[in-house]
């Protein structure tokens, strides 16, 4: 087992491609998280309103996201929209849609939790100062909510990056797919390439996710 196949990575543009694949994962995650935060704020606020039908709809939405495997969602969005509506959306768009669909629900729930955890007295003292509902949410409640949320949403980024390997199902070539391509293209020359390449992939994931989750811990402590 002397040759673990790391050398394979230095053939041609292999390593560069691996990094490009990683960037695809990170990019999809970042865009999705950005969308998730913005829409999640809105959904979260909606979740706290006392409208029964709205609550029911959002609850169902949340349950769907929790229970449906992301791969099924990817299939449905990427192929289903074409079948049913005849839309031909790109795989990247489908992936971002599905990840955002997931993220918005999760963020929404986090936002709801954070808003609920803000003492009622914060609303009331804003009202007592003559602010209306909109001003109260905008200047008082949301800024506090966001601070609690940022560490949590950072964790969502790492979870998304780790889940992006599913997008290969709709033809997107991300880091794990590139890894498989490299392993297969070099199977003859270095049969053990799987180990080296996967070790590097393991490391790459760690290098990307670890600082992000440390940042979350740091912010959580700072804003606690």
């Amino acid at each position, binding site marked *: 087992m002397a040759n673990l196949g790391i050398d394979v990575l230095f053939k041609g543009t292999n390593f560069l491609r691996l990094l490009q694949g990683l960037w695809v994962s990170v990019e999809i995650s970042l865009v999705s998280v950005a969308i998730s935060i913005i829409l999640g704020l809105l959904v979260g606020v909606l979740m706290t309103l006392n409208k029964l039908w709205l609550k029911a709809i959002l609850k169902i939405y949340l349950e769907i996201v929790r*229970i449906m495997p992301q791969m099924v969602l990817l*299939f*449905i969005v990427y192929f289903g929209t074409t079948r049913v509506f005849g839309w031909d959306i790109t795989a990247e768009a489908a992936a971002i849609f599905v990840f955002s669909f997931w993220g918005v629900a999760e963020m929404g729930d986090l936002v709801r939790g954070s808003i609920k955890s803000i003492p009622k007295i914060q609303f009331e003292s804003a009202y007592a100062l003559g602010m209306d509902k909109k001003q109260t949410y905008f200047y008082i409640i949301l800024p506090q909510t966001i601070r609690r949320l940022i560490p949590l949403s950072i964790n969502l980024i790492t979870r998304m990056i780790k889940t992006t390997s599913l997008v290969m199902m709709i033809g997107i070539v991300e880091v794990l797919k590139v890894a498989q391509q490299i392993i297969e293209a070099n199977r003859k020359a270095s049969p053990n390439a799987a180990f080296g390449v996967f070790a590097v992939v393991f490391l790459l994931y*760690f290098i990307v996710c670890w600082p992000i*989750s440390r940042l979350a811990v740091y912010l959580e402590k700072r804003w606690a």
Partner: protein
Amino acid sequence: MDIDILKSYIPLYKDALFLTMKIGWQGILLSLILGLVGAAVLHFKVPVLKVITGIYIEIFRNTPLLVQLFFIYFALPKVGVKITAETCGVLGLGMLGGAYMIETIRSGLESIPVIQTESALSLGMTKEQTFIHVILPQAISMSVPGLLANVIFLLKETSVFSTISLMDLMFTAKDLIGMYAKTIECLFLLVLFYLIMLLPVSILGAFVERRMRYGQFGD
């Protein structure tokens, strides 16, 4: 959708469901044990072990389960440790879950006011008695919603078991699509069986969360 096809596939999905549940719940049990032990280690700041636990958490939380399984299943035999796919699935899921469970239980522990520990100590209880009778039960009930969220997350993560030849729900679906090309039927059953597996847990989670909120605020 073709009902006959659905009917003929259902037994396959049922087998997959049983396998997924079997491995899933064993893995979850393991993760809970790891979670308790790890959280206790961090809580008591046990020298050495504390550092090991920290490293363990960082590694398992920041890499995908797929890659973790790959190492346990394919790399360990190369150094002479051979385990069956099922054991590997349980181990992999348990190790990943453990890292999440530790964090959840630990934050439950941290949310218990120091005064609880101190009043138990002033009643003459030892550190261990305090932990077991006073702190842990409270921490667990504080963490229940988080623990259930972890359970759902872990049951869903079983979808990567296909890598190590375990015929879980996801793999069954992909496999049947590959062989017989009945995409719609296969995905429909996949969603249905995930519902069967996860909906009860999810409902339980919502229920427990509501009960806890009542608990905190009085009646």
